């Protein structure tokens, strides 16, 4: 018996874009139609420009038909190791997990897996809305590879963990989404494979659910089982894994202890610092009529910078265009620490007056500008995300990691001590110190007094 749980050698997976049936390529056709239209419209201008442009473009298209979701990836995982897999969307994380859990085949290279693999690429796979909670536990358990006897043995434990005892004989279509997730996770959590492969399961559900999942995951991690854990949640990676690998455009670019890997990912994975400009081909079609143009961080002097001072005000700008009127649009930002913990989320129409005024936003070009107050953020690296949506109607565009910036802590409160202050905020709080020497009336002090200036 070897010490290795997973060995991956030169693993690669190629996908064909728009691969359809002889000539019938819906997406491709659609794109072609659109390209035809735009090229017709811009023809007079193009003739003035580079003549070879169109030809180059066609050559490019032929090469682009194949895309390597994963290439030349090699690594191994020892038994009992808990490994995090991080990378941006499309970096190949899910493809790797899908190969290791046998859902899809590699196109080249090979992988060697020692032991029974349980994969959780989603919770509630195969749940049927018409079946009751009880029935779905059996069905889902069987799909996940549990034996009937095993499910029966763990049934009470699963129900207990899910907290939906009362509704166990109700069809799950009547469940709230929270109950549904809890039940689904409860079944998955009781899977006992030697190797567990988990993808982004924690990305769904409310804070309490996520906490519960994290708790269960850390139990699993401490039971000595081998775990491969993919997440965008850097604090989850840091909590749960000892080591992490970083994937970028299908290649393994870094492997180190979790804190270093997270740091590497955060500083190198995000190319744009201080400003993010969206090219038209980066914007999904589903975003229309919203079109993000740029997001930037500016200092007090109005310069685009990658570092702002904790003690000075700064501005975050979102520039975008609307190709059509949008009703109820709100454009906002997420602010997270480099480790992925949320600091805040804020929208440009949070204020009631603004909300009334911009009920419908007509087509045109806009800038939504948000002022960050001085003495607000602690020193460190932060990530800004963007979200443009109409509440409960549609999410037009979202990018959780649009750009990063740094905060410099010079002259911030407490900077006379060269120590790291915990937490993402560093406000200048007012402290009063009372004592015998200065007051002399300590016995009389009441609560009102204490806060009174």
């Amino acid at each position: 018996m070897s010490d290795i749980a997973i060995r991956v050698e030169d693993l690669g997976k190629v996908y064909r874009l728009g691969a359809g049936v002889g000539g019938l390529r819906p997406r491709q056709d659609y794109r072609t139609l659109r390209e035809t239209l735009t090229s017709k419209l811009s023809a007079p201008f193009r003739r003035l420009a580079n003549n070879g442009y169109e030809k180059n473009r066609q050559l490019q298209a032929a090469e682009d038909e194949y895309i390597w979701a994963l290439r030349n990836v090699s690594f191994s995982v020892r038994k009992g190791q808990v490994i995090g897999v991080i990378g941006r969307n499309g970096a190949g994380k899910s493809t790797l997990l899908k190969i290791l859990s046998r859902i899809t085949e590699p196109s080249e290279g090979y992988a060697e897996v020692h032991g029974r693999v349980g994969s959780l690429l989603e919770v509630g796979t195969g749940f049927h809305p018409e079946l009751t909670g009880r029935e779905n536990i059996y069905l889902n358990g069987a799909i996940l590879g549990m034996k009937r006897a095993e499910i029966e043995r763990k049934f009470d434990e699963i129900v207990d963990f899910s907290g939906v005892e009362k509704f166990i004989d109700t069809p799950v279509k009547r469940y709230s989404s929270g109950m549904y997730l809890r039940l689904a996770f409860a079944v998955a959590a009781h899977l006992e494979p030697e190797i567990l492969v988990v993808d982004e399961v924690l990305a769904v559900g409310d804070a309490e659910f996520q906490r519960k999942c994290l708790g269960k995951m850390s139990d699993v991690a401490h039971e000595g089982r081998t775990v491969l854990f993919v997440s965008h949640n850097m604090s989850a990676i840091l909590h749960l894994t000892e080591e992490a690998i970083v994937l970028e455009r299908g290649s393994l670019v870094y492997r180190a202890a979790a804190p270093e890997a997270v740091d590497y990912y955060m500083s190198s994975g995000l190319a744009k610092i201080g400003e993010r400009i969206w090219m038209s081909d980066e914007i999904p079609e589903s975003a229309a009529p919203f079109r993000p143009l740029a997001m930037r961080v500016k200092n007090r002097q109005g310069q685009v910078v990658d570092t702002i001072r904790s003690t000075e005000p700064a501005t975050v700008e979102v520039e975008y265009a609307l190709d059509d009127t949008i009703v109820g649009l709100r454009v906002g930002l997420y602010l997270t620490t480099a480790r992925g913990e949320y600091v805040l989320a804020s929208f440009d129409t949070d204020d009631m007056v603004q909300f009334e005024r911009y009920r419908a936003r007509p087509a045109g070009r806009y800038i939504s500008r948000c002022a960050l107050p001085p003495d607000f953020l602690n020193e460190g690296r932060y990530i800004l995300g963007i979200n443009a949506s109409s509440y409960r109607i549609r999410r037009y565009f979202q990018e959780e990691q649009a750009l990063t910036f740094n905060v410099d802590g010079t002259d911030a409160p407490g900077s006379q001590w060269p120590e790291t202050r915990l937490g993402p905020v560093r406000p200048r709080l007012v402290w009063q110190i009372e004592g015998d020497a200065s007051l002399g009336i300590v016995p009389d002090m009441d609560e009102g007094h204490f806060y009174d200036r």
Partner: protein
Amino acid sequence: MTQTSLQSSTAPSQPQEMVLFLRPSRGWAALNLKELWHFRELIYFLTWRDVKVRYKQTALGAAWAILQPFLTMVVFTIFFGRLAKVPSDNVPYPIFSYTALLPWGLFTKALTDAGRSLVANRAMITKIYFPRLAIPIASVLGGLVDFALAFVVLIGMMLYYNFAPGSDYHIAVTPALATLPLFLLLSVVTALGVGLWLSALNVLYRDINYVLPFITQFWLFITPVAYPASMVPGRWQLLYALNPMAGVVEGFRWALLGTQSAPGPILAVSTTIAILILVTGLFYFRRMERTFADTV
């Protein structure tokens, strides 16, 4: 799917570890029925789910399993039996056609469900590994419950015609009755074989969704459901038997109604074809299986 080799057994008596090699595979894959057997409980649960869910939120519920063949029988009796005066091998036309509609219903249902099964279970296929054969197999097996319900009605009809005044029909229990499970098996084999082909093709070509109703309609005409196989001229009989369902239907009538002689030559041809379709279907399915998750 992935070419895998089990270096050692997973049986608890041999606590050796299981090693899985995942690498690109080419060409035809082994059927790996051993692994399928290992997942038999999954097949059971998937079948059970299909049955359980099928008539949920319908007013008539499981009655549909009976109404469908029964109403078809009524229509056939009126148009073919009464108006067109199609011969019915000396049994009352309703019994004659209903006996054929039982395996026919099982066949079309299994065929349609299996054909659509992979696409319908797309979410599962892209998120978890299990032998994909489990899905169409479960779809086919799910039809057996409807078959059993509809079969009860046949017994009722037989008893009715047996005791009805003026009826010259009498229930004939012959030794041939013992062969009934074999014909049932033959129809399941045929449905599974065609279903495997169609389900795998459907992953790539959604045209299958549109072809399915046409196939079942066309197939009905070349199967002796509304008419006896004896209407087909003798020299065409063997060609006719290339349709395995012809053998199944004639076999059902022979076993249950005991009127004609055993459908010997027809049955031999039908069985051969059915097995051929199943085996090629299995291999084609296994060959295509590796791309299911990427293309479905």
